[in-house]
């Protein structure tokens, strides 16, 4: 059997695919954080909890209403987005004039509420969610078996990221958005409804988190705590990439996922910490982040 530094190739490729899967989640989640931060100047600590809700809604739709995966793929992010809009209107909009730190604290409180609530309902144990029939099984690529669902996660996440990038960088709506990020008062003076855009941006950003949750549902155990550790890793991803560039967050997310996958093969003890170690190194040599701009 062929191997690479003592690791059989199929196992290596398997871990790399898993790394890309994790990287896809990092990319979608850090993209949502970056979009929200750009408009609202708030680091959304509730992002992990909203990701968890995306997955949990998917499971609940199936369990209580019999709604399948494909419908959930639309309905769950939409529900999470609507909840996000409610959060923005009811709570966040009062904080824009204050120090950014209050936004972090408020969304941290929200994360505690959401997680505690669902933990009260469902306990800490995860619920299984089966892979839809169309995506079960694996493709034989000759050098490895690629599980179809993993390929789908990577494909869907990349597609969503690229569409988001296109909308923000290349369309008129995106131009308004960038203008409102740069100078909200001036943009408002040109007759663009900035508060509405802020509201929709938050809804869209957390909708992305919800979508990541749906994609994750069949790949992991769906449970109330699935988001909380993930979000801290995503924070590290955001620090490494910097939030200045959309393509930057996507590349950083995928790249770190791959590195994590490789670490799992060669030095599994460090796989949980490697992202944080990279963050420390980046802070030493490039404090603004790989794609960030020094303010």
């Amino acid at each position, binding site marked *: 059997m062929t191997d690479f530094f003592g690791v059989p190739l199929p196992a290596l490729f398997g871990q790399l695919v898993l790394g890309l899967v994790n990287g896809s989640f990092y990319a979608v989640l850090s993209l949502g954080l970056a979009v929200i931060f750009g408009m609202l100047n708030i680091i959304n600590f509730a992002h992990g909890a909203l990701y968890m809700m995306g997955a949990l809604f998917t499971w609940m739709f199936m369990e209580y209403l019999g709604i399948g995966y494909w419908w959930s793929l639309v309905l769950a992010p939409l529900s999470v987005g609507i909840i996000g809009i409610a959060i923005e209107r009811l709570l966040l909009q009062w904080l824009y004039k204050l120090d950014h730190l209050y936004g972090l604290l408020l969304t941290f409180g929200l994360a505690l509420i959401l997680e505690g609530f669902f*933990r009260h309902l469902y306990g800490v144990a995860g619920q299984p969610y089966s892979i839809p029939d169309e995506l079960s099984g694996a493709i034989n690529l000759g050098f490895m078996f690629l599980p179809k669902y993993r390929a789908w996660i990577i494909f869907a996440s990349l597609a969503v990221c690229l569409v988001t990038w296109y909308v923000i960088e290349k369309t008129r709506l995106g131009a308004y958005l960038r203008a409102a990020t740069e100078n909200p008062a001036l943009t408002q003076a040109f007759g663009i409804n900035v508060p509405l855009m802020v509201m929709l941006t938050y809804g869209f950003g957390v909708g992305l988190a919800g979508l990541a949750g749906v994609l994750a549902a069949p790949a992991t155990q769906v449970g109330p705590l699935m988001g909380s550790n993930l979000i801290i890793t995503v924070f590290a991803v955001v*620090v490494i990439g910097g939030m200045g560039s959309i393509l930057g967050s996507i590349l950083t997310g995928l790249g770190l996922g791959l590195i994590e996958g490789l670490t799992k093969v060669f030095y599994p003890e460090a796989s*949980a910490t490697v992202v944080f170690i990279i963050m420390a190194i980046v802070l030493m040599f490039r*404090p603004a982040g790989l794609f960030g701009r020094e303010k």
Partner: protein
Amino acid sequence: MNANRSVQIAYAIGLVLLLIAPALIYPVLIMKVLCFALFACAFNLLLGYTGLLSFGHAVFLGSAAYITGHALKVWELPTLLGILVGTLGAAGLGWVIGSLAIRRQGIYFAMVTLALSQMVYFFFLQASFTGGEDGLQGVPRGTLFGLDLADDTNLYYLVVAIFVGAFWLIQRTIHSPFGQILKAIRENEPRAISLGYDVAKYKLLAFVLSAGLAGLAGATKTVVFKFATLTDAHWHTSGEVVLMTLLGGMGTVFGPVVGATVIVSLQNELADKVGSLVTVIMGVIFVVCVLAFRRGIVGESIALYKRMIGEKTE
């Protein structure tokens, strides 16, 4: 002068209450409150007086708890020396994490401290000396000047001495020239730089001091409870100390003490009654504080008092 007098009276009342309290309330509960109050005061030194929001402070509490536990149990050091080793260990860790984190400002500072503390948390989870999920159990309390600290009352007065000493140190720091520079950095960092202060050095010193004092709280807590667990180092605990400071009033002298007392008693009362809903309640307090109660209990009380005596608030 008037304000000074009332602060002195408050100190005196507080001290008397602390000395007679074990006759009225279960001493272990008060010791727990004191440990968390010290933890919150150390945190307030950083957030309230330097304007740095560290979202990973639990890791200093937790690391000192483990180091002290290990020192007392495996190396069999005397109790005070064990606490000292834990405190110094936390300060050292604070130096490492602080020098990385001060490279970024504001919101990024919070994220960096959170991420680095998560890294240390994973290290504790995997390392053998921490006992992993089970925690480090059976730490002996030892003796002090021939007094057996296994007796709750003896230990109580040691904990009170530690708390009062650390509290005094924090007050001295705040009112020293060093503390004034920290406040200047909080109010306007570019101006502090333009005045020629090496801001990074001051921030790092404040961070190390705060980490060390948080460590002192963690070390003392290990001696009180005779164990150290992963919970001490978890980000949930980091969030709790933020909440205590926010609820009590950040940037006030007694705020963190009041906040810690309220939160610890609340958790103590509610734990059996509502179970996992405690997290929800903590979250609700967080949201309410941020939206409507940003000065905290002590801050609002001071503002109310000033309004009553007709002084203008800023």
